[in-house]
Each structure stands twice: as structure tokens, then as C-alpha cells.
């Protein structure tokens, strides 16, 4: 890699050990991905915020670097393990709460905006078309590349953190327009369609695609389906973006058979003890839709609904929060279904969700069974 004089100096420690560490990380990842230079980025979105994902070593690392490090560009952060405002209502051990607080403090000390959200693309203004950003949350990276006109690789926790500290990223993979052009098309052949079928389409595409993939036979996606498609794709593989329409090159059909295989892989129960909605977190449009669907109905079991705190005031002011709570829904902010310590397999055996990403992590991390069905079916079957 070719570095500028200033980058070489920082790598050599002339601007302190934390910046040297950040540049070592960018150069290491750049060398490993055949980048030839570093380029400026305008916004970093970090993963590795939930104590369940980074553990004690991560907590100690962040505490150590936050003593002198400050973020150079706008930096937003992923969800935590729980909502500090409501944590007293849940049985969560004090150690977890203390460790999560330390991680939160470290990120905020370095200058992170306390967004605690996996949908930064929905709650922040989007920079102009073609702007380079570094998004570590996979659904957000895919959404940014595919819908928001931004450019990012599907960053890891360390590359995004190093980008936040330096304002730079290695120029490789999806930052290059040639790589962004897909050479594989997936033809969507499944009818009828809802957010769950799009989530499974994404999960299928992630398994078979390289860095970028084209999807044909799809138009007019609503927000819920867009997010579900991105989250499904981010869960199963390394693919970091998609385009709509058919491209030259190989074509693969996503048909009923393929979808059934994925459903069989992720759906391990025909019922659940608890419902979770929100992986990715629900934004204002989805909360509005949910409120309409719930009119006059009530959940017949616990239902946890995960949102970013950025929309908290708005959903209270518009009456959505009241309506959802009347129906028995529990609104939780700053956290998400994925790796939530609030879903404890000592208390529940199985969880109902419409999220493919949620299903994957509930199975692999929380070790509970999953009943995967669309939001429409959840409302029909789980409320009265």
C-alpha cells in the first residue's frame, strides 16, 4: 500500500499509540484485501457495542483506548444489550449492566453519537450520492450501498473503529465501481410476497453471491421488505450490496423449493413463548403500520418490540406508543433482538419472529427454537 507522509508518521506512532493502532489496523486490513491506498470517509457506524458480542476483552480494550482517543468523523453506534430506562423491569444480572455501562461510556467518551441503532440509514440525514462511509453493521452496510447511494465495504468491528479514529478506510472491494457491478443475477420467482419472503431471498442471495449481486423480478418494495432483504443477506454471507434488474453473467432462480429449504433451516418450532419484532430495529413507518394492524386487538403473549431511541419522542407524541402498549406490546429502545440477554433460554423455549436475521441469532446465540412467520400472520395468530 502507498501511504502519504502523514499516514506513515501516524503509523510510526508520531501521533500517539492509539492512532498508530488505528493505522496498523487499516493497513493490515488493506494489505489483506489488496488495497493500494487509504481514502477519506465521512461517517463511521460501529458494531461491537453489545457486551454479549465483545465480552470482557472488548470492554477492556475500549476502556483503554478511550483514555486518549477521539473520533475524527461522525460516528454512530449499534444497539446495546438492553434499554437502560427499562432494565430494572428485566431479570438481568448487575455484572452485565455494569459491563454494558462501561462500553457505552467508552464509546461516548471517544465522541460517538449515542444512537444505539442498527438502522442509521433511517434516522440520520444521508450524505450526498457516492459518499464513502464505513458501516460495520451488515444490514446497514447493504442498505447504504443498495438504497442510500453511499459506498462502504461490509466493514468489521475493527476496520470501522479504525475508520472512526482516522477518518479513512482502505480503498478495496466495494469502494471500487468495477467490483460494485454484479456478475450474478438472482431471479425472484416466489409468490405471494411479504417481508419474510424477502428476508429469505436475502438469506439465499448472501449464501450464493460474491461482493455484489443483482436481483430481478422485484419492484416497489416497502420499507419493511427492504430492511428484511438487507438483513437476511447480511446474515448468511459476505455479499455487501445488490442492484435491481437483470445483469449479464450467471443467473439463478429463487423459487419455492429454495425458499422451503431456508424456511426449514431457520424455522424450528410451530409455536413460540414470546414474540420479538425488530431485527433490524423498527423505524417510524413500521411502528405506524404496526399500530394500524393492532387496532382493537391485543397480544396473547409477551411481545418485545425493538426501536431506536431517536424515534421515542415521535411515537409517543403521535400516540403510537400508547396504542402498542395498550395492545400489550413492550417497547424497548437502544437494543435489538440479536444477541439480546433479555431472551433467556432458561425462561423461554421458543420465540416467534418475522426476522430472518433474528431467527438466525436466536438459534445460534440464545439457543432457543424459532417460529418464523410474517408480521401479518403474527398479528392474525398471536393477537385477539
Amino acid at each position, binding site marked *: 500500500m502507498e501511504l502519504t507522509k502523514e499516514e506513515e508518521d501516524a*503509523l510510526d506512532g508520531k501521533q500517539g499509540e492509539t492512532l498508530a*493502532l488505528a493505522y*496498523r*489496523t487499516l*493497513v*493490515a*486490513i488493506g*494489505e*489483506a484485501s489488496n488495497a493500494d491506498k487509504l481514502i477519506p470517509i465521512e461517517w463511521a457506524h460501529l458494531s*461491537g457495542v453489545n457486551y454479549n*458480542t*465483545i*465480552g470482557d*476483552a*472488548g470492554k*477492556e*480494550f475500549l476502556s483503554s483506548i478511550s483514555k486518549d482517543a477521539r473520533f475524527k468523523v461522525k460516528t454512530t453506534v449499534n444497539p446495546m444489550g438492553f434499554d437502560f430506562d427499562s432494565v430494572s423491569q428485566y431479570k438481568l444480572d448487575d455484572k452485565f449492566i455494569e459491563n454494558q455501562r462501561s462500553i457505552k461510556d467508552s464509546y461516548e467518551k471517544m465522541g460517538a453519537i449515542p444512537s444505539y441503532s442498527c438502522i442509521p440509514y433511517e434516522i440520520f440525514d444521508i450524505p450526498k450520492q457516492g459518499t464513502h462511509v464505513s458501516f460495520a453493521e451488515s444490514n446497514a452496510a447493504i442498505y447504504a450501498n443498495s438504497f442510500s447511494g453511499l459506498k462502504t465495504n461490509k466493514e*468489521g*468491528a*475493527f*476496520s470501522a473503529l*479504525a475508520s472512526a479514529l482516522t477518518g479513512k478506510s482502505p480503498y478495496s472491494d466495494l469502494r471500487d465501481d468495477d467490483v460494485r457491478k454484479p456478475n450474478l443475477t438472482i431471479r425472484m420467482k416466489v409468490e405471494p410476497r411479504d417481508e419474510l419472503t424477502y428476508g429469505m431471498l436475502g438469506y439465499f442471495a448472501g449464501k450464493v453471491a460474491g461482493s455484489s449481486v443483482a436481483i430481478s423480478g422485484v419492484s416497489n418494495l416497502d420499507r419493511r421488505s427492504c430492511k428484511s432483504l438487507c438483513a437476511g443477506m447480511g446474515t448468511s454471507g459476505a455479499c455487501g450490496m445488490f442492484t435491481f434488474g437483470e445483469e449479464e453473467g450467471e443467473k439463478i432462480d429463487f423459487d419455492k423449493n429454495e425458499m422451503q429449504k431456508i424456511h426449514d433451516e431457520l424455522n424450528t418450532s410451530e409455536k413460540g413463548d414470546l414474540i420479538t419484532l425488530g431485527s433490524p430495529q423498527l423505524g417510524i413507518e413500521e411502528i405506524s403500520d404496526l399500530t394500524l394492524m393492532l387496532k382493537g386487538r391485543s397480544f396473547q403473549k409477551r411481545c418485545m418490540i425493538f426501536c431506536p431511541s431517536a424515534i421515542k419522542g415521535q411515537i409517543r407524541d403521535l400516540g403510537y406508543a400508547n396504542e402498542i402498549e395498550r395492545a400489550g406490546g413492550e417497547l424497548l429502545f437502544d437494543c435489538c433482538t440479536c444477541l439480546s440477554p433479555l431472551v433467556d433460554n432458561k425462561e423461554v423455549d421458543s420465540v416467534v419472529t418475522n426476522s430472518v436475521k433474528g431467527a438466525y441469532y436466536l438459534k445460534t446465540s440464545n439457543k432457543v427454537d424459532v417460529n418464523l412467520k410474517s408480521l401479518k400472520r403474527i398479528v392474525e395468530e398471536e393477537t385477539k
Partner: protein
Amino acid sequence: MNVKVIVRGKAQGSLLVAKNPINFLGGIDKKTGLVHDKKHDLFGKSIGNKIFAFPFGVGSSVGAYTLYSLKYNNCAPLAIICLKADLTTASGCAISNIPLVVVDKNDYDLLHENNQVTLDAIEGKIL
């Protein structure tokens, strides 16, 4: 032999060479540096203060923090030699300041346990 530098630095010491990939999250004890994955060919050996060669890393990216803990506990490898630089090993070496280089298969096969080597991960050479 010539190597590709991923994380810069210099080290001198004896080699420990693995046949199997390394899972830093599940396979290494971060307090002692011992390989505690029973199915691994280096089971029971310590990777601490060695020049550690393994094909590539596997498993969760959180494994990068294991290298950081090893460094903190004074039982990290002096340097790492891989066949392929996976992002977990690259990030882990970067945040822990452990020199990391990549070699090709023919050169990897010339590495033997207990050989004394000098690794120059600035010029890109192993002597």
C-alpha cells in the same frame, strides 16, 4: 524467504508450526496462551513467546480480542506467519502490535518447529 507484510515489526525466536487453522475465540486460552482445542494438532502447547505459524484463522471476528488479551497477559506470540491473512488475525495482530506476515505454500512447508528464525516484517524477509 520473502514474505508479504500485513503488520510491521521485527521478531526473533523459535518457531511453532500448526497444521490446522486456529480459532482464537474457542481454541486458545487467553490467560496462558495454551492451545486448549482437543482436536487441534498443537493441543496442550503454548503459542506464547514463539513465532507462530498457522494456515489461517477461523471463527468469530471477536477472536481478535483474544490476541489482545494474550498480549496483555504476556503470553502472545512474538510474531505470526500465515498462508492467508484472514480479517480476524489481521485485526487482532494490528490492535495488539504483533508482526504478521503471509508466505506462500512452498515456503510454509519449509517452516519447522523449534527452528530459530529472524523475522523482519518491515523489509519483508524471514532469515
